[in-house]
């Protein structure tokens, strides 16, 4: 059981500052949403938290240990657009890739991950024959197959129809209840936020952090001061 803690993170691409003074804590077994408009730095923050990018300022810890050597504890599910969905591979083949670098590879892990997302019956199906929602669940299963305890999901519900989105949210809700730490980036400011334990709103810096109700009321007070964050 591990908590992910970020302290005063700043990051820029060249001279363009993307993230400034970000501090947050993801507690074990919580389902947290990261909400913000396009260009708010959501994907960059996830890549920092996974160790793909190094912050220019600030530090990231897993409990009291620096992220560096322990980054395998954090798994990132990429955006849909970064996957070559036409690649010749079955659902179980995709999920097994989650263990490419694992020291102890296990076929049970692949099967268990498929079971968790409800895709065991489609294990032998080719990836491009699945629906969009099933493909996202397959990608989630691959992320779960890594021996990690913290899972960062980059806009997993983008381009999903409402029933598929609800199904996906219900699966990650169950995963959080089973003790996994899940951090999900999203564009969705609507009722879907109620599915999360905590919400962080981001626009290059943290605007609000708390329960969905707390964040909504805080954003309304910011908005009434004339500062519209969500474009």
């Amino acid at each position, binding site marked *: 059981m591990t908590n992910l803690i970020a302290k005063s993170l700043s990051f820029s691409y060249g001279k363009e500052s993307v993230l400034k003074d970000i501090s947050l804590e993801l507690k074990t077994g919580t389902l947290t949403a990261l909400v913000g408009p396009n260009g708010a730095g959501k994907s960059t923050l996830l890549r920092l938290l996974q160790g793909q990018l190094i912050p220019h300022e600030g530090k990231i810890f897993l409990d009291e240990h620096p992220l560096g050597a322990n980054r395998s504890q954090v798994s990132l599910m990429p955006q849909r657009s970064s996957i070559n969905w036409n*690649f*010749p591979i079955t659902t179980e*083949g995709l999920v097994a890739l989650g263990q*490419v*670098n694992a020291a102890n590879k296990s076929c049970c892990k692949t099967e268990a991950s498929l079971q968790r997302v409800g895709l065991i019956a489609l294990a032998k199906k080719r990836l491009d024959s699945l629906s969009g929602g099933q493909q996202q669940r397959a990608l989630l299963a691959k992320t779960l197959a890594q021996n990690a305890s913290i899972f960062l999901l980059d806009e997993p519900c983008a381009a999903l129809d409402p029933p598929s989105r609800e199904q996906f949210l219900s699966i990650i809700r169950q995963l959080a209840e089973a003790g996994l730490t899940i951090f999900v980036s999203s564009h969705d400011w609507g009722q879907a936020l109620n599915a999360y334990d905590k919400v962080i709103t981001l626009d290059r810096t943290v605007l609000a952090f708390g329960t969905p109700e707390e964040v909504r009321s805080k954003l309304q007070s910011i908005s009434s001061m004339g500062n519209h964050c969500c474009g």
Partner: protein
Amino acid sequence: MLEAFFTNWWVLPFLIALLVGMLCPATGAVLITHRRLLQANLISHAVVPGIVLALAIGVDPSLGGMLSGLVGALVAERLSSKSKGNNEGVINTVLAGTLGLGVLLIPLLGSLRVDLESILFGDLLAVGQADLIRSLLAATALLLLLKTSYQKLVYIGLDPEGAAASGLNVSSVRLALGFVTALVVVSSMAAVGVILVIGLLSAPALFGLNHAPSLHSAMVRSAGYGFLLTFIGFLLSIGFNLSPGPLIGVLCLLSLPFLREKSK
């Protein structure tokens, strides 16, 4: 009896055509899934100056071709990184430039006698044992790449960013794939020529990739389709006394309407 069979004039060209006909599509299946076919096309043009230079200094042309093909790919890769998303323009410019350089080198090197047409479009009936060895070497290199890096090739083809994030060295795998591509292109010089090889890298692989459950299966299927295509091409070329390279290129084109749509 076996000796008599191997002394027939058509046996060696036939064997090489079939070997290249399987090797190119198997490599093409990997290249298509990695979206590296344009790079392969670049390599197929960039081998020309190396082949010409190697012939001028009396070195095996496959060595020169392979080196200049790789150098062309690396130069394009380097220049593409500065072009901010316009890498197709850069690759095509390098492609044209390297081919132009190869053509210019022939008169510049004076007394050099090079049959440019056979380099570009193949001359299967003039092949020798060296061509067979080149094809076998290229096949060995491909098998070695698959043996050592199959899972990496799958991961990088499916999700290059994720593969890099999980610690795989994407650049080195791509370099190894470029090396194998250059070997395959050079080995197919005799059968279809370095220009027409792109047809054999593409068309049978498009069939092979359809409905294949894995990259491995797609490669085997692609090799099967390639075998069939070159077999028919070779027979037709003898029957109608036509050049096999261009004929195989045309057969690749004619096969495309038979490509079935993917069904969900």
